[in-house]
């Protein structure tokens, strides 16, 4: 199994999840750096994500929208805080309005990612999600539930059946 550890800290509203991949750190980094790869895993199959802006530099903006089964398109943004390619990434993730502008009274999550090649070709990725309040967490879960509920079992088959288009990022 890829996920090796999960730590849920209710009191500080933090989720830490550790995964290990049979890949190099730079390969794992591409999953974040290359928007075309990122959009293949960020949203569930029922709400695939499309990244519009993707400026992975400190202070940079990333904007995306997800497309639901009814054609609804919830939008989101990241505000990049720290980048240390290919080792760590820190950003804030939030909701945006129809024009892609951040909605201020919607909750945001602080996400930090660390990527560490523990052995040649074996990489550990630790993701920490920190929430601002219980309400924020509740709101996010509600939205996430809507997006994730109808998750099709066929998603893995679909991914496997897809054409491989490597070399998207140099």
């Amino acid at each position, binding site marked *: 199994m890829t996920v090796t550890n999960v730590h*849920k800290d209710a009191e500080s509203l933090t989720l830490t999840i550790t995964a290990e991949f049979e890949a190099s750190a730079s390969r794992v980094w591409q999953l974040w750096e290359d928007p075309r790869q990122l959009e293949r895993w*960020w949203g569930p199959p029922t709400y695939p994500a499309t990244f519009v802006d993707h400026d992975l530099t400190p202070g940079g903006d990333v904007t995306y929208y997800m497309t639901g089964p009814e054609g609804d398109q919830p939008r989101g943004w990241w505000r990049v805080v720290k980048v240390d390619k290919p080792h760590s990434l820190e950003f804030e993730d939030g909701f945006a309005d129809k024009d892609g502008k951040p909605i201020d009274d919607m909750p945001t999550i602080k996400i930090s990612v660390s990527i560490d090649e523990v052995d040649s070709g074996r990489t550990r990725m630790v993701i920490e*999600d920190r929430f601002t309040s219980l309400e924020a967490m509740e709101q996010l*879960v509600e939205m996430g539930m809507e997006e994730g509920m109808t998750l099709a079992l066929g998603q893995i088959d679909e991914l496997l059946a897809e054409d491989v288009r*490597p070399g998207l990022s140099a």
Partner: protein
Amino acid sequence: MVVGTMNEEQVDLLFHAMADTTRRDIVNRTMTEDYSVSALARCYTMSFAAVQKHVAVLERAGFVTKHPNGREQLVRANPGTVRTAHGLLEELEELWRDRIDRMGEILAEPETGEAE
């Protein structure tokens, strides 16, 4: 060093770095027994003000409530909120597990374009 936002950020970072264990401990302690803030402060090496701040954060989030007891305020954990938070974190764990599964699938694809 410039005094200003940067410093505030650093203080904030420090505060958060310590937050996990201290807050969890405060909630655990007050789950079985009421504590005054000063009694709690004696349990840690940090300042009274820092402990007070942690209690305030926990109170705002609904993890603890304060009950007047003479001249003191007693801190008491709210198990319902802790359960709710755990439940929510479980949902979020699922979300990330799904994402990580998808990442794994992508990584498992044969790579032809790159030489490491």
